[in-house]
Every structure is written in structure tokens, then in C-alpha cells.
């Protein structure tokens, strides 16, 4: 029997404010919700969500998934070519792209341009038409990076000959792969595929990758978690700002590179290339995040989000409990600032696997660390803190490895709980660059966006069905 009569009544008022004021006037203990219809007013989804609230199966699964995420130790262990690390690439002509699966016809300009560029790079075709034919007749297969433990920023293109960083989760040995950042301007990840772009990519494979590989072998493996933690204390949120992290990485690698015995010219070019690109670390930040999120993946019944990724048309989400299933929706617009001469009409839809950083509690979730970033939406450092604070309400906990000085060194909010997103209509915040919708123009701005609600609603429905099926309860 409920022992409510022996307790002091403490009321949560959900609805009419006057009931709370009456109760308050009568000396009662009452707190009011700022209630709004969950799931953006989708009644059926709201009911399915309700069935998952505080559900023991989900709670236990989340605890496990979150602990595995916290325990992950991403370490940069190697530099290889993509085909060496991703065996499927040896079996057939395969090119990986960012975001959830998408057919060639539906892809946005920058992704198409980048895929064609990768085909040029591989020497499978020499003209746009030839390249397209290879794709349309199935000779060249396209697949999401996430299907092969890989991540890539913007178009996120990885083809067999490209060099990749190999990041390993120390406790489990599971690996993730990412391509190398080409810098700004005309680059493949924004869809450029002109000869200079291909030339740069070739150089990265022939000179940069061997230099990095040699440096790694001299220096030893690079633990990425402490490096990211340090960068967060230096003004990075390691998504849209990687200036500090790039510096920290280079600091570790330069002596090793110099001692590698490689020709000094080559070493100088490699170092200059990295130093010329404040975003060089972004890809490593993403691979580290991928390793951490993979550690949390595939725990049945868990509502923890393990992937957020965009392909330039759709935004895709995966939950730990629903494994490899994608939940997709049209990407939300980016609220941001544009480089001179560009505007919102020039922008491609939100693009890239880089939202894996937010999934791991970095990027927009760690915005309090990076006041420079919040200016992209005309905000103040206070707004940055507000973003980080708000993310606490949709996450499973804090990651003590990543602390935010501006918030009194509070742990960053991490482990997005899809239930909390849908219940409160609070969307994960994502810091992002803005690509031009035409292939090859490049980055035209940067800003803040959010993950679209329908992804989370669909994910919750799938999870509710899974729980229902398991418990044998009628819907």
C-alpha cells in the first residue's frame, strides 16, 4: 500500500498554474513544470515514450552503455591506408561518405563532387561522366563511413588509397578510422575535385602520411583523451575550434618527425601543412569520439545515442539499443554567420560525420569551453555556458575526463538519452561549418544547428517496440 499518508506531500504540478498557487497558498509543497507536449505534440509517440520512462530494462542498459563510454581510452596507434584497415575495400571498389545511407541521385552537390574526386584519385576514371557511370552501374559502391567504423568531416569521403588515422579503444581493442584534414579552401571534403585537390591528396598519401607514421613510430602512441581534455582548457571544443588541439598534437610529433631520418624538406612540408590548418586535429577528435561511442553501442534496450551524422540531405541517428538501425530526418537549418559574399541561400544542408563529437559530449556540448565559437550565433560566453548547461538535461551524466573551466570545471554533459530529448523537446546542439551547396566552392560560414526531432521520435518508437516485444506486453 502506498505510504503517501505518512509522508509529507510534495507535488509536481503539471498543467494549470492556478492549482499550484492554490496549493502554495494552503501551505503545500509544490513545484510547477513548464510543461509542453512531448515529441512536438505527437500523441502516439508520447505514449510510447511514457512506456520507457524509468523502465528497468532501459535504465540498466543505459548504465552499462554509459559506463562503457566513460571507460573508453581512445589512442592514436597508427597511420595506414584505408584499404589496409578496411578489408571490404580490398574486395571491391568502395567509397565511404558521411552520414546515413543515401542513393547517388539524392546526394547533395559537395558529396557528389567529392566522390567523383575520390574516383579520380583512385584512377578509376578520368572524367565526371565516366565516374558517374561507374557509380550508376554499381562498379563503384558507396556506403556510409559509419558502416565501416570510420568517420569523416563534411562529405567524409574515404577511398582505398587514402591515408587514415587508426584510433584504438585501449580496453577493448576496437578501432576507428578517419581520413586526414586537407585544410580550408578548395578541398575534397567540400566537393572540390580539380587537379590541385587531387594533387594535394596524392601528396598527403605520399609524403604527409609517411611522415606522420614515422613520427608515431618514434614517439609512440598518442593518448587522445588527455589531449582533448587539455584542449578544452585552452579554448577548443574540438569540433569547430581545434586550434589548441592541433598545436598540442604537433608539439608531440615534431621532435619525433625530426628524428625520423626522413629528408628534412619532407618533414618541413608536413609540419607546415599541419600548422597551416587549425582544423587538422578535427578528424582525430572525431575518431576518438567514434571509438568512445562504439564502446557504448549495441547494448540492448539502451536509449543512449551512439551516432549523429549528416549526409547533406538527411540527419541520421543511431541508438545503442537499436544497434545499426538508422533513424533519419531532413536536417535542420544552420543558424550562423557567413563569409563575405555568401548567404543562407548558398548553404548546403548540414553535412558531415563530425556531429560524432557532440554525441561524445564535445563540440556544442562543450561550448562553454570555447567562447570564440558562440559568437557565430551572435552570442556571448554566457550563451556558451547556457548551451552546455542545457545539454545536461538531455544526457545520462557527465564525463569527468572532459571538464569545462568556465563552468567551474564541471564535467561535460555526455550520453544523449533519446527519451529526454523527446520528453523535453530539447534538441542536441551541434557546432558546425557551413558548406556551399555547389561542389568545390568550400566552406562559406559556420554556426550552430540542432539534431532534428523526428530522428529521436522514430528511435524512441523502435526502442519501445523492442521493449514491448521483450516483455510480451500488448501495445
Amino acid at each position, binding site marked *: *500500500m*502506498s505510504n*503517501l*499518508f505518512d*509522508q*509529507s*506531500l*510534495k*507535488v*509536481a504540478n*503539471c*498543467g*494549470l498554474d492556478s*492549482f*499550484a498557487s*492554490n*496549493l502554495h*497558498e*494552503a*501551505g*503545500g509543497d*509544490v*513545484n510547477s*513544470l*513548464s*510543461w509542453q*507536449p512531448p515529441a512536438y505534440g505527437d*500523441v502516439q509517440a508520447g*505514449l510510447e*515514450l*511514457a512506456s520507457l*520512462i*524509468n*523502465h528497468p530494462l532501459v535504465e540498466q542498459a543505459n548504465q552499462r552503455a554509459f559506463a562503457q563510454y566513460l571507460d573508453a581510452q581512445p589512442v592514436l596507434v597508427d597511420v595506414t591506408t584505408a584499404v589496409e584497415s578496411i578489408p571490404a575495400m580490398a574486395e571491391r571498389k568502395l567509397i565511404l561518405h558521411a552520414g546515413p545511407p543515401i542513393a547517388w541521385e539524392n546526394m547533395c552537390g559537395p558529396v557528389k563532387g567529392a566522390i567523383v574526386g575520390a574516383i579520380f584519385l583512385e584512377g578509376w576514371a578520368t572524367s565526371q561522366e565516366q565516374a558517374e557511370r561507374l557509380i550508376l552501374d554499381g562498379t563503384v559502391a558507396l556506403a556510409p563511413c559509419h558502416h565501416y567504423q570510420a568517420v569523416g568531416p563534411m562529405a567524409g569521403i574515404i577511398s582505398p588509397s587514402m591515408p587514415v588515422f587508426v584510433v584504438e579503444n585501449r580496453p577493448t581493442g576496437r578501432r576507428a578510422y578517419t581520413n586526414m584534414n586537407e585544410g580550408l579552401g578548395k578541398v575534397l571534403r567540400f566537393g572540390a575535385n580539380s587537379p590541385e585537390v587531387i594533387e594535394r591528396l596524392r601528396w598527403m598519401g605520399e609524403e604527409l602520411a609517411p611522415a606522420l607514421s614515422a613520427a608515431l613510430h618514434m614517439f609512440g602512441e598518442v593518448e587522445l583523451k588527455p589531449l582533448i581534455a587539455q584542449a578544452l582548457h585552452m579554448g577548443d571544443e574540438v569540433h569547430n575550434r581545434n586550434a589548441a588541439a592541433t598545436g598540442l598534437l604537433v608539439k608531440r610529433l615534431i621532435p619525433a618527425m625530426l628524428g625520423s631520418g626522413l629528408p628534412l624538406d619532407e618533414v618541413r612540408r608536413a609540419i607546415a601543412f599541419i600548422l597551416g590548418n587549425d582544423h587538422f586535429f578535427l578528424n582525430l577528435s572525431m575518431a576518438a569520439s567514434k571509438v568512445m561511442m562504439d564502446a557504448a553501442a549495441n547494448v540492448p534496450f539502451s536509449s543512449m545515442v551512439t551516432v549523429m551524422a549528416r549526409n547533406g540531405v538527411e540527419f541520421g541517428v543511431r541508438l545503442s539499443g537499436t544497434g545499426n538501425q538508422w533513424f533519419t530526418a531532413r536536417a535542420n537549418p544552420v543558424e550562423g*554567420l*557567413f*563569409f*563575405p*559574399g555568401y548567404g543562407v*541561400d*548558398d548553404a548546403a544542408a548540414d553535412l558531415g560525420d563530425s556531429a560524432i563529437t557532440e554525441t561524445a559530449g564535445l563540440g556544442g556540448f562543450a561550448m562553454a569551453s570555447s567562447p570564440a*565559437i558562440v*559568437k*557565430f550565433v*551572435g552570442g*556571448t*560566453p*554566457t550563451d556558451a*555556458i*547556457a548551451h552546455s*548547461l*542545457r545539454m545536461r538535461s538531455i544526457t545520462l551524466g557527465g564525463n569527468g575526463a572532459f571538464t569545462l573551466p568556465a563552468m567551474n570545471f564541471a564535467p561535460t554533459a555526455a550520453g544523449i538519452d533519446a527519451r*529526454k530529448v523527446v*520528453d*523535453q*523537446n*530539447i534538441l542536441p546542439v551541434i557546432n558546425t561549418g557551413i558548406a556551399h551547396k555547389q561542389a568545390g*566552392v568550400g566552406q562559406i*560560414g*559556420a554556426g550552430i544547428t540542432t539534431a532534428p526531432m523526428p530522428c529521436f521520435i522514430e528511435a524512441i518508437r523502435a526502442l519501445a517496440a523492442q521493449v514491448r516485444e521483450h516483455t510480451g506486453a500488448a501495445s
Partner: protein
Amino acid sequence: MRPVNTPWKGSEMSSCFKIFKNLYRDSVSLMQVSARISKLPGVAQASVAMGTEANRAQLRDAGLGDAAGAGPNDLIVAVAGDEDACELALSTAADLLSSVEEADSAACNAKAAVVSLQAMLEAEPATNLALISVPGDYAAAEAEKAIRLGMNVMLFSDNVSLQQEKAVKTLARERRLMVMGPDCGTAIVNGMPLGFANVVRRGAIGLVAASGTGLQEVTCRIDQLGAGVSQALGTGGHDLHEEIGGISMLHGLDALIEDAQTRVIVLVSKPPAQAVAEKILARARAAGKPVVVNFLGAEPALIERWGVHVASTLADAAERAVALLKDVPPAINDDAREVAAREALVERRSQLAPRRRYIRGVFAGGTFCYESQLICQRQGIVAFSNTPIKGNHPLDNVWQSTAHTLVDMGDDAFTRGRPHPMIDPTLRNERIVAELRDPETAVVLFDLVLGYGAALEPAAELTTLIGDASRTGNDLPLLIAHVCGTDADPQNRNHQIHALREAGVLVANCNAQAAYWAAYVANLQKAE
């Protein structure tokens, strides 16, 4: 190669730029300033950049002039557009670049609004009851969450399907939690008023009621009789349907049986489904404490055989409960109450024109309308109603009375899109005035419901309207009312009764008495 958004009509526009020597701003700040001045009316294009060779080339390409003389450490503001607009843009940019942004620490300390029950529980872990009054479509989901989070629930919301009600209540039963509602308007838990509740003394009588105003009437009457209430639990109007099976009433009954503070129990409902009634009465028989039952209109013998105390009216339930508590026989019965007022009624009735033959009941409380119909029927009066009891007739047009008519102004037909008459009595008062003006009305019978959530001065407007009516007509019907409330209510029952009496209203002690009086008058008119 580099697209320009704005159609460029260089010849009609001017362009100008300004160089700020040795002024460094990071690129984001520059883009911000650029965005701000681009939006100024008359500005076609604007660019704010450091004076690197590449940036200067870009400005030239864009037709924004050649900022010769600017070096990499200098900041360039370049605009194109109307001449005046350009000047304004340059000065605005200068202001923006020199302004120091004020730090605002408020947001750091601001507590985020709590939007979900789960977040509330995290913020206030001792929360043990959710009072839910969200729109009906969403109510079941919120109730389910509350239960899964370990909270008891009072569900004020209506329009929750029976299937959802059953699911929510079944879940709560598994977790030994209480669900009051859906459509539960009032409760008193641990002395605290929930929803529309009256301020009643705490005491030893515990109630479970499927009727909101029924619960209010019994608790107020208990208070008026000098006793008090331990707990007053609502179940919502559908709980005793066959489909729900009285889960909430059984739970409430069990809770009161276990509760050491409760010495007498009162159950109030419209007649439950047979199987449900039997389950409840069987439990009541085994309560180990006296249980008073008022299943409005049910055959007394069918209830009495379960060894419980049968009350004929809501007020009677209060009187029996208080008597049981004090271990004395119930003081007054219903007939005695009627006789006590007979003289005054006969005197007032004698002034009524013979054509005034009908009772017009205008109620804010649904149960008061129901009970009044029962009592009138027992006195041989068949009436029309928007919520007719068995044997009475439905109104063709709920807005138009005919013969004897008793309307529940709190019913959906009157409350769709407007507040309940307890909160806003305007519509109800209009109906009372209409009945007053009807030459066939013998008695206008009504209720005033007080308590938290109810209108603060319910008698004030009404007595003004009655005053207006009596000034315009010399031949008026009788006004009979009862006030459901206590002197401790925000409205003060005594104060309201006094105001009504001043306006010539005959005020009965309880709803049942008011109905008896009305029926008595109507039967005298009929006999004439």
C-alpha cells in the same frame, strides 16, 4: 568563380571603405560585424576583413574598391549601396568594433525551467504526487510517466479513454500507487487541497468519491457538523465502470482501512456496475471500521445487506459519518429537515402566481444536479435535464428549459471552449436570470460552490442580477440555493450565505434540503 548574392548594379550605387590601422579582431567577430551592417537598409553588400593581400583581392573582385594602403594588421570595412546607407554602415561598424560587450552572468546562474516529470524528480527527489491537468490527449502519457517514476497521480484532465485509464490504473496498482482521476476535480491529501477543494478541518473521517462535487459536499458538511477529514480521495467518474472495475476506489478504500488516522470511511458514487459494487462492498464489510456508503439513487436494501451504513443523500452521508465517529445516532433525517422550513416556504409560496408551476434548477456541480433530480423524482416530479437520471427526459435544446428542468452547467455542452461555471459563473448566472424572467418558473434552484479554484465572489454578481430582476418585475419566482463550502474557504461560506439571503434567496443547509424545498413548493403549486 566566387558567387555574389546580391544582383550587382554598380553604376547606381556607391561603395566606400574605411581602414582601421593596427586593429585586430578574430574572424568570427569580423563576420559578426559584417552580418550586422549587411542587414542595414540600403546596403547591398558589406565586408569586414583584415587587410591581407588575399582579402583585398576578394574585395576588388566583389567590386568593393581597392583598399590600397591597408596592411595585414589593418582592418577594412567595405560597403556598397546607397550613399547614406554606406555612411551609416561605416559608422555602425566603427561603433561595433569599439564597443566592449558586457558580460552577463545571469544565465550562468539561471536555473533552467523544468519541463518534464523526470527532470522534476531529479530536481526534487521527494516529489510523491503529480497533479496533472494537461490536455486530455497527453494526460495518460504524463500519468504513466509519473507512475513509472514512483509518484502518485491526481489526473484532473478529462477526455482520457477508458482503455488508457485502465492501463494507467493497472500499472499504478502493480506499483501500489494511487491514481485519482482522470476527470478528478478535487481531493484533500494529508490536509492539502488538490484541484477544487475546500478548506476543511482535519479529522478522522476518510472519503473516497467518484464525484467531485459529491466529495466537496460531504467534506464541507462534515466540517459544518464540527468533525474533520483525514483524507478525501477522488477516483474520477469512470472508475466504477465495469471496464475499470473500481481500481481507484478499491485502492483508496484499502488505504483508508490501513490509515490509523481514519476511523470512519465514506464512499460516494453514482450507482456502480453490479460486479464492481459487490467487490467494493465486500471489501467495505471487512474494513474493520464503519463504512458509510452513498451510491446516489441505489436501492438501500441492496447495499445494507453488506453490513455497511447506507446514506440517502450526500449530506446524510456526512451526518451518519459524524454520528458514527461520535458514537451517537444520526441527529436529523431528511423529512425532519423539510418540515423545519415548511412554514417559511408556505408563506413565500402564497405570493406566487398560479401559472408559476415549474422548478428550474441551474447547477454548477454535476452531482448536485443529479442528486436534486433524484430527490425531486422521489417527490413525484419528473424533470428534463441535459444530464437526465433514469426516468427523466433529455432536453431537446439544452439552452432552453421546458416544464421542470434541471441543468448541469458544468457539463461538456456548456463548458466546451469556456471555463467551468465554478470558475467563471457568467453563463450560469445568465441562465438563472433567464429562468427568473420565465413566467412559468416557480422556483429557481441553484448551488454556489466555494473553495480553492472557484470564483472568489460567486454571490456578488448574482445578487446584483437578482436585484435588477426584482426591480423590473413585481412577480418573481422563489429562489432556493445551497452553498457548498466552509467558513475557512477563501470565499467564506457565511459571507456568501448572508449575501444571498439579503437578495431574498432561501438558503438551505445542503443540496438535498434545497431540492426538497423546491419540490415541496412545486407540488403545492401543482395542487392548486
